[in-house]
């Protein structure tokens, strides 16, 4: 049972005061819609860089990566090594010149400049839905976690409220805080708080990893207590049956590295918006590269807690018999059934009706991997630093939500409202609309949070959504930026074909041990993948390929745009920027090479 004392509450309160304080302090700088939606395009590169990875550091990262660490082992680090770093280098070096240089205010707006109105409308709509969905998932996960950890139980008892209200209370509290600081300070406020949260995550999780490693006997102790395959990133990856994730090298490299990773880091306005807020082109290009540096060491902070949780001994109800002054004393430590049926510190999933552990088709207990990281916090942290750890966890959920909300209000205001509902209004009007779009976006997220999801792992759910919407998207941007012949009709039909293919593939295949339904196979089961992760990757590969092929074919059938209109939007038609005044080691390219070498080094180390 969680016992929070006054110190823990004080730490949590201190964080909330600063978060809101930053919002209030920034309010007076919000003069134009550019200040509100684009942070005035005046932020230093390091702040944007830390916000760039922090925007993604929500539920899917901290809880999801811990869960994947417990489920799949160190192979999870591929989400960083292959999934993120190369894509971040690519977007910084090759794509940022077009995003930043085109002066587009959002990613859908770039699509309108490069292709046409309908491509933008399609992208803006699907993106708006996706951000609301993500932030809803984030909220739901947070409320569920607060419930499971009994964070507010003591508070509710003290005030005399019904503990059933904790779910709603958690959702409303987080929604209100995020709403307030974005309403006041716009994107700047969201970015500043994302940076704050970045350091808070390190402050909360670094001591956890250090203590956990010490307890298990250091690196060698960890190696000895988990299956061999869990400690290797690459070994066994050549064939699906020899690695925990059940993915072979092609699915991994293409699916994660090329399609899902790039689709996310290179096209998702959620992260791109932070780079577009920086003060000049060189800074904007440096933002993803700066972000890649901490991204390389983040596996230690977010994956290791999950891996340690699986490796530690499972607590069992035990009775210690001792004799004190002739009297025999039985001291019994009772563990709850979900803990006993679990593995390490990862509890089993309990059927709420029967009170028994849920089993998969092979009769093994289904583990609640999402509890791996939170249980580590409870296991190792005494009161005081426990408050810090929980605050870090809450902060990560809130900033994940905040990134989605600012992306939503920008896309809604510029790409939907200004384009299709009310053209030529005053700047003040659009800023007000942006503020109210923030309120609307948060209300919609709350709605999504209540429409809860029954999935084993948040990460898998999000990857599924991304593979429907984002995976085909990267082909559109790739062709749009590097092939001047690509046309608007082609981009539009390519996107439709890509998403349709993704859904079709999902409907026709199913992971092993899963029942047809939300996991796939709702049309017919033509093929079974070894794991849902493998299936997600292949869904993405099919969606990307369909989009690529359809866009190329339709481009040749339709009329190309005159080259003069595409200057600054397509690589071959854009003059190279003059950078002679910058020392070679300060250039983004030099930073990119350094990051790449570091990433390769880490992959070799964890082979």
């Amino acid at each position: 049972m969680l016992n929070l004392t006054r110190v823990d509450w004080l730490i949590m309160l201190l964080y909330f005061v600063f978060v809101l304080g930053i919002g209030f302090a920034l309010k007076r700088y919000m003069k134009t819609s550019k200040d509100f939606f684009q942070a005035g395009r005046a932020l230093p590169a390091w702040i944007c860089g830390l916000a760039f990875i922090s925007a993604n550091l929500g539920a899917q990262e901290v809880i999801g990566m811990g869960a994947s660490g417990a489920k799949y082992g160190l192979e999870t680090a591929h989400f960083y090594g292959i999934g993120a770093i190369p894509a971040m280098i690519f977007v910084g070096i090759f794509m940022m010149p077009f995003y930043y240089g085109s002066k587009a205010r959002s990613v859908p707006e770039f699509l309108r400049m490069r292709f046409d109105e309908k491509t933008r409308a399609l992208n803006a709509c699907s993106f708006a839905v996706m951000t609301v969905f993500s932030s809803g998932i984030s909220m739901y996960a947070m409320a569920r976690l607060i419930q499971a950890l009994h964070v507010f139980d003591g508070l509710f008892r003290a005030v005399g409220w019904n503990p059933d209200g904790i779910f709603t209370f958690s959702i409303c509290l987080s929604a209100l805080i995020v709403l307030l600081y974005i309403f006041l300070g716009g994107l700047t406020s969201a970015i500043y708080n994302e940076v704050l949260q970045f350091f808070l995550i390190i402050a909360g999780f670094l001591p956890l990893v250090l203590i956990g490693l010490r307890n298990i006997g250091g690196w060698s102790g960890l190696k000895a207590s988990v299956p061999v395959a869990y400690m290797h990133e690459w070994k066994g990856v050549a064939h699906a049956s020899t690695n925990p994730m059940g993915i072979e090298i092609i699915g991994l490299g293409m699916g994660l590295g090329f399609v899902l990773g790039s689709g996310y880091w290179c096209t998702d306005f959620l992260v791109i918006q932070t780079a577009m807020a920086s003060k000049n082109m060189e800074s904007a290009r440096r933002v993803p590269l700066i972000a890649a540096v901490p991204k390389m060491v983040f596996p230690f902070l977010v994956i290791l807690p999950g891996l340690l949780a699986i490796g530690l001994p499972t607590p069992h109800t035990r009775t210690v018999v001792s004799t004190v002054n002739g009297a025999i004393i039985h001291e019994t430590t009772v563990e709850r059934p979900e803990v006993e049926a679990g593995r390490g510190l990862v509890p089993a999933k309990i059927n709420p009706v029967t009170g028994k552990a849920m089993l998969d088709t092979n009769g093994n207990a289904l583990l609640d991997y999402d509890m791996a990281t939170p249980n580590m916090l409870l296991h190792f942290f005494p009161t005081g630093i426990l408050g810090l750890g929980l605050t870090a966890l809450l902060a990560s959920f809130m900033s994940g939500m905040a990134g989605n909300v600012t992306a939503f209000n920008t896309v809604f205001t510029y790409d939907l409202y200004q384009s299709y509902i009310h053209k030529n209004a005053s700047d003040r009007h659009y800023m007000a609309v942006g503020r109210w779009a923030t309120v609307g976006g948060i209300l919609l997220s709350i709605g999504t949070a209540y429409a809860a999801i029954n999935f084993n792992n948040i990460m898998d759910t999000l990857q599924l959504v991304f593979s429907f919407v984002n995976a085909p998207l990267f082909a559109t941007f790739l062709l749009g930026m590097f092939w001047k012949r690509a046309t608007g009709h082609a981009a539009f039909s390519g996107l439709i074909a890509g998403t349709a293919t993704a859904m079709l593939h999902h409907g026709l295949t199913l992971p092993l041990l899963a029942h047809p339904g939300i996991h796939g196979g709702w049309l017919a089961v033509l093929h079974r993948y070894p794991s849902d992760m493998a299936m997600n990757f292949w869904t993405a590969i099919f969606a990307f390929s369909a989009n690529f092929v359809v866009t190329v074919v339709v481009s040749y059938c339709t009329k190309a745009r005159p080259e003069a209109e595409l200057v600054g939007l397509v690589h071959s038609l854009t003059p190279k920027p003059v950078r002679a005044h910058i020392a070679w080691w300060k250039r983004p390219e030099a930073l990119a090479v350094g990051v790449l070498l570091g990433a390769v080094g880490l992959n070799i180390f964890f082979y």
Partner: protein
Amino acid sequence: MSLDLRIPMGLMFTLLGVILSAFGLATKDRPGFYAQSLGIDVNLWWGLVLLAFGLTMYLLGRREQKRLAKLPPEPVVEGEVRRGH
């Protein structure tokens, strides 16, 4: 943007550090209090780390603010296009 993030952030971590290390000092000798964290007084040690980090951030932010205050209004860099109104 004239609000340097390092100042509020430095303040926050300084305060966090003070709270944690003071609490750590007060609970240092309580038997069994740090059994969970393997007998290490994490509050004290981690509090000191956060305190050092917070102070560094705060001082860096203040130094930058003073430097900016001394400078004449920002000169326009040659060749750079001025945006905005």
